[in-house]
């Protein structure tokens, strides 16, 4: 019986270590998916969390400056100013009217500071009959 204790002990140690790493990893990288409506209702809580906001890129709103890209996300009538400060080049699909996912935090000035942008080119995705093309599934 004694040898089984050894196996059990090793297995417990291995799984506990991995579990601990997993919990730490989840805490570090948790990102909350929200809509623009939710973002504008969240107030103070929004400042503390890493968020992922979806919307369409307002045509003509993209302004590129050295190392910064500013644009406006739109969902219905709601608009949100976003500034992208990430290091990676923006995806090819990021352009006017694209469905974009902005990953980052809400600044105190009300501008959303994104570290990562994902974009789907709106025209590429098959529009469902009778429905306007929605945002990326979140």
């Amino acid at each position: 019986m004694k040898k089984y204790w050894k196996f059990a002990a090793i297995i417990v140690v291995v799984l506990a270590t991995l579990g601990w790493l997993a919990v730490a990893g989840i805490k570090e990288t948790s990102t909350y998916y929200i809509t623009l409506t939710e973002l504008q209702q969240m107030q103070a809580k929004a400042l503390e969390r890493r968020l992922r906001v979806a919307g369409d890129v307002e045509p003509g709103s993209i302004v590129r400056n050295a190392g910064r890209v500013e644009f406006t996300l739109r969902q219905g009538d709601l608009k949100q100013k976003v500034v992208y400060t990430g290091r990676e080049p923006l995806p090819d699909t990021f352009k006017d009217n694209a469905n974009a996912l902005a990953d980052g935090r809400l600044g105190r000035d009300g501008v959303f500071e994104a570290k990562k942008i994902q974009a789907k080119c709106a025209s590429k995705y098959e529009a469902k009959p009778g429905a306007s093309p929605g945002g990326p599934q979140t």
Partner: protein
Amino acid sequence: MENLGALALLLAFCFAVYTILAALVGKWKDRAYLARSAERGVLVVWGLVTTASGLLIYLLFQNDFRLSFIAGHSNRDLTGVYKFAAWWGGQEGSLLFWLWILSTYTLVAVYRNRRKHRDMIGYVIAILMAVQLFFLIMVTIPASPFQVLAANGEITAVPDGRGLNPLLQYPAMVIHPPMLYLGYVGFAVPFAFAMAALITRQKGDAWIATTRVWTMLTWLFQTCGVILGGRWAYAVLGWSGYWAWDPVENASLLPWLTSTAFLHSVMMQEKKGMMKVWNMALIAGTFFLCIFGTFLTRSGIVSSVHAFSEGPIGKYFATFIAIGLAGTVYLILDRLDYLKSENQLESVVSRESSFLFNNLILLASCFSVLWGTMFPVISEAVTGEKISVGPPFFNKVNVPIGLFLLFLTGVGPLFAWRRTSVESLKRNFLWPGVISLALGAVLVAFQVWHFYALMSFMLCMFVALTILIEFYKGSRAIQAKGGGVLARCMVELTHRNTRRYGGYIIHMGIVFMFIGFTGQAFNSEAQEEMSVGDTLKLGHYSFRLADLQKRNSPNYASTAATIEVSRDGKFLQNMYPEQRFYHASQQPTSEVAIKPQLKEDVYVVFAGMSNDQQKPVIHAYLNPLVNWVWLGALVVIFGTVIALVPSKVKLAYARTQVVGTAKHEVPV
């Protein structure tokens, strides 16, 4: 024409239902003519599915834009091979492709094994046909590739299609999906044999021996598929990495992890009659993860940049997986007595225990990847908030797992069965251990402080040495008996036991891949808006923008940059990163320029134009050691092929050759 295609699928559906019934009734009532008829049903269904596939390909080449699938995924100016690739370039077509591969596999599996496994082939047919039936339902009802475009009650056509996604117009992308599908779909066959063996309570492990070649080939396809996917991401997506823990990538990795675990733990059953329940669970898990992966990439339940568009097919998949899983769990629980272990674990330092930990850790990795991928869905169900976890989560858990696996790769094969003596530990591991510690000291002296990178390099050295010593010792033994030149002896040694030495070669490939993975710790990059004549500096390299040229082709318009790359002031070569704009899809893409070297890749991206449309933005990366990943993959493929070659000497201890029916030949 499209009606003919749809009709073929509908007929295939009817025949599939008939075949399942004939196979089962033939088995239960012991009617030979029904069993025979079921075998023919397999052929008929294959013929019909092949006809439908052929028609779809024909219509693709005919530019028949009345079909919504073709209008959505092809266009007139698409070049030949990509037109063919459009078959699997979209939802409906790719489901048909899946079905066609499964149908072909079923045909081969049934016709190669129907005599040898008379007693269980009926169930094999029924199970494989049930899976085909599911996919036939999919391509008939919710996702028919033969759906025509209609307006005002009439069939209409669009003048030109929207084209294949430009990101998919890349050679590796033509091979990658078929490879992955061949791998995904292939596990249906060992799964069907395992379940049939369970249903009929087969004596011995005949199903394992029968499906061994099958499992390995499928594993090989899967490995190629996953790596080609990474290679495609690296060469096409332009972010200089090959793995981003994207849900779609994870979906392809999950069954690979369980099938790798299966390939290892199955040896425990062959040699020691242990882990039988576990193996059943693993093969079933692998099969369902393959289905789940197909589902994940199509259902839209997790967001991914390169997932297919969402549709109603999610529910169908969920139902199929639920029924299948319930059936499998019931079967295993009901027949636990048949799956009783014949031996027990004896020591922590033994071959058995290294297999056990190898499995534990692969499964832990699989679970963590599954958990992370599904986290948005799980968290929404539990807390109501949709929360996602990023790549750091996956890395945090999987990097230590990877290192532990690498360690097991080195020690596992050298541990003895049952228990290992201290003497043998010393003999096998003293020098590799000492040398890798010395390597660690040297690396620290060269200011390499990255903990995981340090561990990884030391383990790579350790494992590589243990493998080389194994080859060397074995070859020397043959040489001592008059075998001639050492290299010849090494070939002889490998040929005598291809499974063992092929396995070592695969492990060596894995070591190479880890060297490549570790290189990521030392990546560097720089980005600048540049005018013609400007220079960007990165490490030892400098990049001078020499020229900008606009070009036009029927499929796309492009702007190409000419960049003079020099190292330490000495001119190396010109690189030509490009921005393309595809006419059909109205989509821009970046064409990456890569200078591959064993030490480091120079990777240049034309990231786009600055806002005033005047200056190109150039992004340069240095990716040390990345080529070792692809090199390692080639070694893995080579090793797998070696392991598939029959051994020259039949080993006395191979238990399967005593029990079961595999002694005649190794069937596919």
